[in-house]
């Protein structure tokens, strides 16, 4: 069975390390915050100017002046700090964020990512995504392995306009954990009850299968 959104998030949470500063994109990445292991200290960065994002506010706590990058009302965690957009992206561009998790439409064997624009459809803008992929050393892309028609989104070359070039090294999908290196996807883990054959079938880009493929622990 392909993973649920929650299961993908819980698998990604296993990549967190104690003391990490993490930027979580909109969608599945946001859910990762729910799976931070007990006792682990992780600080969430929101690129609109908040380091130390807390949970949603209670009705009484709602503050129009305190939102996250998804424009949702939030609270601050202990030790939070606030700053301008220039400072926030100095932090991101300067490589100070330990881990960035974001969604994508497509990734390819060169580590390219397309996530912001589908020609012919309305262009909403890239927001902070281009800065995030250019600035982080450690990026996890989370996405469905294939679209609803079964077309792979794990490609030899992205077909959509790029968000960033040669910047992605790790992808967690509903079917697999993949590492990108040496011009290929390397299958690190498969989802429980998902066969290597299914992954091969749904991966359009060059895929390397090791002798043994671990099953994800989700």
């Amino acid at each position: 069975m392909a993973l649920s959104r929650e299961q993908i998030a819980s698998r990604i949470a296993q990549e967190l390390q104690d003391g990490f500063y993490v930027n979580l994109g909109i969608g599945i990445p946001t859910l990762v915050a729910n799976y931070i292991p007990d006792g682990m200290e992780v600080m969430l960065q929101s690129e609109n100017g908040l380091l130390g994002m807390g949970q949603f506010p209670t009705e009484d706590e709602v503050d129009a002046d305190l939102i996250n990058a998804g424009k949702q009302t939030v609270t601050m965690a202990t030790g939070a700090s606030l700053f301008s957009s220039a400072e926030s992206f100095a932090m991101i561009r300067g490589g100070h964020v330990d881990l960035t998790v974001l969604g994508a439409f497509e990734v390819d064997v060169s580590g390219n990512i397309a996530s912001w624009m589908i020609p012919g459809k309305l262009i909403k803008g890239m927001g902070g995504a281009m800065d995030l992929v250019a600035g982080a050393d450690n990026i996890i892309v989370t996405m469905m392995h294939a679209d609803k028609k079964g077309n792979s989104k794990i490609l030899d070359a992205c077909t959509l306009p790029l968000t960033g070039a040669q910047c992605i090294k790790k992808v967690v999908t509903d079917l697999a954990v993949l590492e990108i290196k040496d011009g290929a996807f390397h299958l690190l883990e498969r989802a429980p009850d998902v066969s290597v054959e299914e992954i091969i079938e749904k991966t359009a880009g060059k895929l390397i299968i090791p002798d043994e493929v671990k099953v994800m622990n989700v």
Partner: protein
Amino acid sequence: MAGLNKVVETYDQALAGLTDDMTLMVGGFGLCGIPENLIIKMQEMGVKGLTCISNNAGVDDFGLGLLLQKKQIARIYASYVGENALFEKQMLSGELDVILTPQGTLAEKIRAGGAGIPAFFTATGYGTPIAEGKETREIDGRHYVLEPSLTADFALVKAWKADTMGNLVYRNTAMNFNPMMATAGKITVVEVEEIVPAGTLDPNHIHTPGIYVNRVIKGSFEKRIEQRTTREA
């Protein structure tokens, strides 16, 4: 003598000199920390042909959406414009020229404009449509794009508090683009929730020194929330 006192009493005074075809910076992220009354005043004034530099374009009936309603904006620099149907229509019809700019690059272009830096290199956007037509360069094995800075005729800023000399303090994530824009306008106009006497803000904790500020006006704010997300108490 007016001296260092930046306080004005009316929105007419606040926006005096703002005319058609000018370039404006407008603070805010989404609807958070936007100079909402200055925008309403611009709709009333009917100035047209504006170039707006703003991370977002408001919603249909609030923020910069009010200026889109009256087709007052000719061109916009923004990073994300997804919550606005009017915007979509005007963009597709060609009435509105949209220059999508990565959020961090936009913030830095504005900071650079205020800081007298005409251009800088950034890795953001290299290899993407954003870099098309721009100078690129490899430095120490990485690829970068040269980005020119931005300045504006007017910067419209929302702060929390000002003192009478125009020293500003922002609150929470309503800060966002406001501090950089305050430095990059030929005329910087600031709307605040409270004006206090000079000397009452802690000098160590002023976010924007008054040197950048030309006019300060006290407003009252709706502060509309785009996504009211809550948890059980």
